[in-house]
């Protein structure tokens, strides 16, 4: 599945894209070969999803819609994985902000 892929996802994590989610986000991004970037505002610049410094630097608050795009062999899987991660509240690892059910 080569080529380009782009999807939108709402960031609902209580504290926005902060340290723990950002580390998880970049770890997942780095597991794919495609170039992946995201943007939190239409017209704003695209941010490298594999760079923790850039992701943190974006200081994305909760409630923003992230546009995630990727370009490369596994672009579609990469975007899907990141979208799932954001939807699952970054619960790929344990932490204080856990949803219970």
């Amino acid at each position, binding site marked *: 599945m080569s080529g380009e892929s782009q999807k939108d996802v709402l960031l609902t994590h209580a504290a926005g894209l902060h*340290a723990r989610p950002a580390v998880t986000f970049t770890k997942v991004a780095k597991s794919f070969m495609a170039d992946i970037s995201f943007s939190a505002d239409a017209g704003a610049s695209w941010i490298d999803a594999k760079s923790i410094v850039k992701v943190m630097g974006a200081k994305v608050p909760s409630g923003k819609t992230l546009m995630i795009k990727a370009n490369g062999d596994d672009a579609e899987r990469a975007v899907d994985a990141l979208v799932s991660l954001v939807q699952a509240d970054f619960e790929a690892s344990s932490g204080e902000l856990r949803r219970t059910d």
Partner: protein
Amino acid sequence: MTSRSFKGEAVSPGIAIGTLCWLAAARVGDQTSRTDVNQADQLRAAITAAIAQLRLLASSLSGDEAELIEFQIAMLADDALSEQAFLDISQGMAAVAAWQKAMDRQIEEYAASEDDYFKARAADLSDIHERVLVELIGGDQTGQSIPPGAVIAAHDLTPSRFLQTDWDSGGGVVLTEGSAMSHVAILARARGVPMVIGVADLDAADTGVEPSVRIAIDGGTGEVCLQPDDAVLQRFAKRSAEQQAHQHALGKYLEQDAATADGHQVDVCINVAHESDVDHVNVAHCNGIGLMRTEFLFGNGLPDEETQFRAYRHLLSWAAGKPVTIRTLDAGGDKPVANLTVDGERNPFLGQRGIRLCFQHPDVFMVQCRALCRAAAHGNLKVMFPMIATTQEYARAEQFVFDALDQLRREHIVCRRPVLGMMVEVPAAAICIDAFDKPAFFSIGSNDLLQYLSATSRDDPSLRDIAEDCQPAMLVLIEQMMRIADERNQEVSFCGDLASQPKALAPLLRTGLRTISVAPAKLAEVKAAIGKIDTVAAPGVRGAPSGV
């Protein structure tokens, strides 16, 4: 000097009374880098050394503490952090100056953020900045030795300094600045170190001359007192004694099995989602794992059999013979999994989720069943299926486990049949529980059951009252379940959020329930609450939902 009181922000509860010890800045060598060695190489080496130190530190930590250090490592390992510094170096700047310039700019950006959370991250960058700087030009980041039991005072405190301090003999932290959202505040709470921040008018100049100034801090109220007099000391001592008694009482509850006021033992197990959830839990404080949610293993894609097997076995080892109940993949609804869950359902809670989704992806489900049957040979494993609506579904799910066992045995792989049961969360199953004679146990999933019974969405806070008012309907079903299960020797347990709420516990226990599962952090509180409940039913405790 006379006693002086201050008020700050309470950030980590507890009382600390001790010698005031102002923290000196990290001793850093002279401010220039060696000119005989290539500047870029020096900086690269310093960063590499800093990462190695942090990795070593991280290896001795776990849970939140390890994650904070992981965050620092991730930042340091990112080229973007030092990009500007290397650029400046290539233009002729010395390594130290370039590093300081690059870091100062980034630290300033965070410190200037309006969002308190991001503002607090400046402290993490300062920590990284200092560590690399010390590598570049020598010095000692651990700074002066701090007498045991002393209360550290500083402008701010880096996570590294906190972690390198020995807190075993007591002590506390008081900061003139600091942030409640800082990593060091999280560390202080995790370690139980009293901490007060924002005491802006506490000045080193006032206290620097005295050889040893006493200070008392209350991390629960934010009160700080220099040279406390007897009256203040008495007050603090009383609060400290009260807190310790409370902790001790909770501790006693933890160490024993829970029992109601009228003498019925209640098994209290824990809910987990990840292997590391049990890192800080003493298995002696609970009666096992009542629910392991496996969908978080699937957060990064579909884990293979080996990965799952290792995770399940880790929990079984930790449990040392106590029962571990693992719920098979319960994706869908509000838990999406890439490549598995269906996008764009109009009613995801009523859609392809739980066991239904597993039937749609038999290959994925089989991998999980195989991993579970392999793990079953290593401990006391119970497996339950989520969202079962009919006996046909239960039989079909069970068959997967039997097929997995057949496969594994043919392949001569060690395995065992786990005890099998189901979640009771679909109303149809709860009402017709009589038909379910195969499961060895039932676990009531009240979160979803109550949603379906009250026709309210958990996500909407304005509907919570309705859901709460419908609890009697759920209690009716539970009582029915208890009667039938009792006759057939099937175990019934409860793993919804309600079990963690003391107010809701009493009616639950009065139905005859004797096994519940709660979040690990709630163990002490729940066991203590059980001790106060009398299971002889109070009059009028049951009734039809209001408005019928």
